């Protein structure tokens, strides 16, 4: 039997924290004289705080630590509850979203996906815009914390590879964890500040700069305009965003090591090499395609392909062009790039680069073994042999991803979507990228028009994708709840 009290207690704390964050847009709306939205935020915050505090009080007492199964439950339901309570302001604000749309928007926020159902962002009240950015920002740091501390312990999809690194930093695990988390939080905050300052210097207003910085560092991708970054028509802003999108997709643990005097690790890391290599290759090919095949001038082609490729691979989902209309190879290319994702240990989504490394090394060793059946070939990751269990877990993740993708796409098409929308929608949700492909949900479209059924399926997809699939799917296993 799983003891629920510690889980409920932790969720109460999470909900109360959310209520406090909800106070910020209330103040902003009040200051900018959007009285009605200010009071709806205040009311939602009060309600959320009430639920949160009563949960904490009801479940307090006793301070046992969470075991593995409790952690799974907390991770799955914590994210779900966060989305449910964050949806309140969307439903009760001036936008008047339906409960389905509000939940979808909130889930897209906390999972740092950039799919939105709201059109008319440019004239939306500041409180709502700030709330969306805050959701992504909190979701982003939550994800990084999970990727560094929780997922390696849960041994989800090969994440145990990164446990060695944390453990290698000291003997006593727990005080270290708290220390690591606060340092990583500090780095996150510094990145956000730097990004906001740079964006402001490049020409955004202060409010826009802060919101976009939050959506960038969390690789979220919510913007303050329906046209996303294309609204600003500014090469400087795009350059700043490219730099910070890349920085936010690298493993945050490496920044920590760099801060502690080992900056070499950042440049020697195999995953970083692969990530930069994939980006460079994809940008080069896409630029060539735009320049040579579509006849765009070279610099314009480079600018558009660099921004949109980085945005899709990092899982951010900002757009400056309707890459949907770039033609066959580009469309297929974006679909596959979506799936790749950033590095493990960052806020970005997708299958993640280290898994491709592990699988590549394993497949390479296998092929060599086919040629020389008696030879000994050991696949390696960052100069260490990859344990068999890690290789199996990574490959299992890959299979699970394919199955989830197939089922989600089937579900979406049964809800009435066309093939391109179902396939790309499933990919964009599972990888937390955001915009899909095609006329409806493409870079210049919106999820607002989709049937409710599709929105629920996509919300589930975003949650499962964010928690590396296993963490959510394990909850559906009868054996999990038994014994």
């Amino acid at each position, binding site marked *: 039997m799983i003891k629920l009290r510690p889980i409920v207690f932790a969720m109460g704390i999470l909900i109360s924290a959310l209520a406090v964050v909800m106070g910020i847009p209330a103040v902003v709306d009040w200051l900018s004289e959007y009285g009605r939205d200010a009071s709806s935020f205040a009311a939602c915050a009060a309600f959320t705080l009430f639920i949160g505090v009563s949960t904490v009080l009801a479940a307090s007492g006793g301070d046992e630590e969470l075991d*593995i*199964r409790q952690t*799974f439950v907390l991770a799955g339901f914590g994210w779900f509850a966060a989305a449910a309570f964050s949806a309140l302001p969307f439903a009760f604000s001036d936008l008047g979203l339906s409960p389905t749309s509000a939940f979808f928007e909130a889930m897209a926020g906390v999972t740092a996906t950039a799919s939105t159902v709201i059109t008319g962002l440019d004239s939306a009240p500041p409180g709502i815009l700030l709330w969306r950015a805050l959701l992504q920002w909190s979701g982003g740091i939550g994800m990084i914390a999970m990727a560094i501390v929780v997922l390696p312990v*849960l*041994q*989800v999809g090969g994440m145990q590879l990164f446990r060695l690194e944390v453990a290698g930093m000291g003997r006593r695990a727990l005080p270290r964890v708290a220390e690591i988390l606060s340092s990583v939080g500090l780095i996150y905050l510094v990145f956000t500040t730097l990004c906001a300052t740079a964006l402001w210097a490049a020409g955004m207003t202060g409010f826009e700069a802060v919101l976009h910085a939050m959506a960038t560092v969390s690789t979220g991708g919510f913007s303050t305009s329906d046209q996303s970054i294309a609204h600003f028509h500014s090469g400087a802003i795009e350059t700043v965003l490219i730099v910070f999108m890349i920085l936010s997709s690298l493993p945050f643990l490496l920044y920590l090591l760099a801060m502690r005097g080992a900056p070499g690790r950042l440049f020697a890391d195999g995953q970083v090499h692969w990530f930069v290599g994939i980006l460079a290759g994809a940008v080069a090919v896409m630029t060539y*395609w735009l320049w040579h*095949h579509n006849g765009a001038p070279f610099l314009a082609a480079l600018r558009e392909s660099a921004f949109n490729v980085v945005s899709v691979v990092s899982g951010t989902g900002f757009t400056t062009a309707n890459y949907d209309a770039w*033609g*066959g*190879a*580009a*469309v*297929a*290319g974006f679909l*596959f790039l979506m799936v790749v994702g950033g590095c493990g240990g960052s806020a970005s989504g997708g299958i993640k680069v280290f898994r491709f490394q592990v*699988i590549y090394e*394993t*497949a390479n060793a*296998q*092929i*060599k*073994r*086919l*040629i*020389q*059946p008696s030879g000994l070939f050991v696949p390696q990751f960052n100069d260490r042999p990859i344990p*068999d*269990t890690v*290789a*199996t*877990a990574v*490959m*299992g993740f*890959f*299979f*699970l991803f*394919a*199955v989830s993708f*197939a089922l989600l*796409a*089937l579900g979406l*098409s*049964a809800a*009435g*979507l*066309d*093939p*391109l*929308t*179902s*396939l790309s929608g499933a990919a964009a949700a599972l990888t937390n990228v955001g915009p899909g*492909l095609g006329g409806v949900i493409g870079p210049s479209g919106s999820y607002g028009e989709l049937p409710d059924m599709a929105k629920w399926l996509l919300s589930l997809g975003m949650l499962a994708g964010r928690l590396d699939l*296993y963490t959510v*799917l*394990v909850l559906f*296993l009868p*054996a*999990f709840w038994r014994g």
Partner: protein
Amino acid sequence: MIHFRPVFFIIGILLATLAVAMVLPALVDGAAGNPDWSVFAASAALSLFIGVSLIIGNWAPHFQIEVREVFLLTTLAWLIAAGAGALPMVFSALHLSFTDAYFEAMSGITTTGSTVIVGLDAAPPGILLWRSLLQLFGGAGFVITAIAVLPYLRVGGMQLFRVESADRSGKTMPRVAEIASGITVIYLALVAIDATALWFAGMDGFEAVCHAMTTLATGGFSTSDQSIGHFHSPAIEGITTVFMLLGGMPFVLYFQLLQGRPQRFFGDSQVRAFLGLYATAVAALVLWQWLGGGETFPQALRDVSFSVASIMTTTGFTTVDYQTWGGFAVVTILFLTVVGACTGSTAGGIKIFRLEILYVTAKAQFRRIVQPHGMFVMHYGGKAIPDPVASSVMGFFFLFALTFATLSLALGAAGLDFLTSLSGVATAMANVGPGLGAVIGPSGNFAGLPDSAKWFLSLGMLLGRLELYGVLVLLWPEFWRG
């Protein structure tokens, strides 16, 4: 050092066999008074000449064949068979370009069934027979490869199907040869039964034989541009559905049936999963068509059961344009295309046994997550799955996805639209035949594609047929070294 002599020797035998087979269409065309007979006779003479020279030039009293020679041989055999099969098509009355002819021959020998020929209904009988014969040979060749060669090469988990007692007794070859010849007999017997049934159901004798050959090979070449839809006959569709399904199940198990052990056949986990998946897909699409698409129930059942069998067994016959069934049907068919049927049959795709192994592995992982210190042994068909099998199956799955992505990007770069490139690669790598979209869909044709796309697709067919590793291994520098 790789020994090329035995490789060329066996290729010589293959070419000589193909040359003999080319005599059949020559005779048929001669009897029908079609001038193409001379093309077939000349191609036969050329192939025979090259084949016999290779045999004589590389003959040796004692051969040494090892793993690397076998890898090289399988890939070369398929490449060269497609080349020889293309000869009559280039010079026949159809006047195909070399690219088109090679694509058509590769599609035949890999039992894919994608065609570039328009106007099959009016084509000379020799060429129609030759296309069917290519698929018949390709199907037999693949079943024997899957039983005798791939397990030995340990390709993509195929070591699981190693002929039992093969390792120790030292009498490996006689046992394998015995099984291979037994399977060939069963294969030909099934073709004969199918042809007779089709003839009774209303096809003429020639059509019946041609279709029977491409049905059991799960190939899908037809004698009409409208494929099986041409006949408008529920009986023909029913018979073809049954024999496609038979062609998609492990041929070794038919021994068990013949020896009066049906429980071994129906108890086989691969057969059960295959038939279960087939039934589920049919039920879902029948409901979708009946309740949502406004078809009558019997009509929906007829169309769906045929089309799903044709896609899952990677045959590729069509009776209706299933793309008009809407998004759900299109997405379902796209995924079923890559699934394929059972290992040990003539069908292509990822194959049911691999999906079963992946499923069992994923399940064991979930349990390991819940109980990190538990011991979990994975079982398949009542036996424990050795670790190397599980990981080579997963490696296969990854390579499949990677090859799929690379080839569809290449097709996109060759100028095809999104759905055409994605479904084109799926249909080629799984050796199915028709893709999706207006160009290569069930009522379309591959003739309109640019030449580069045809070569990419031919490569995809070859890669899919030889289970990827069989070809990709040749690209590793280690293969050629030392």
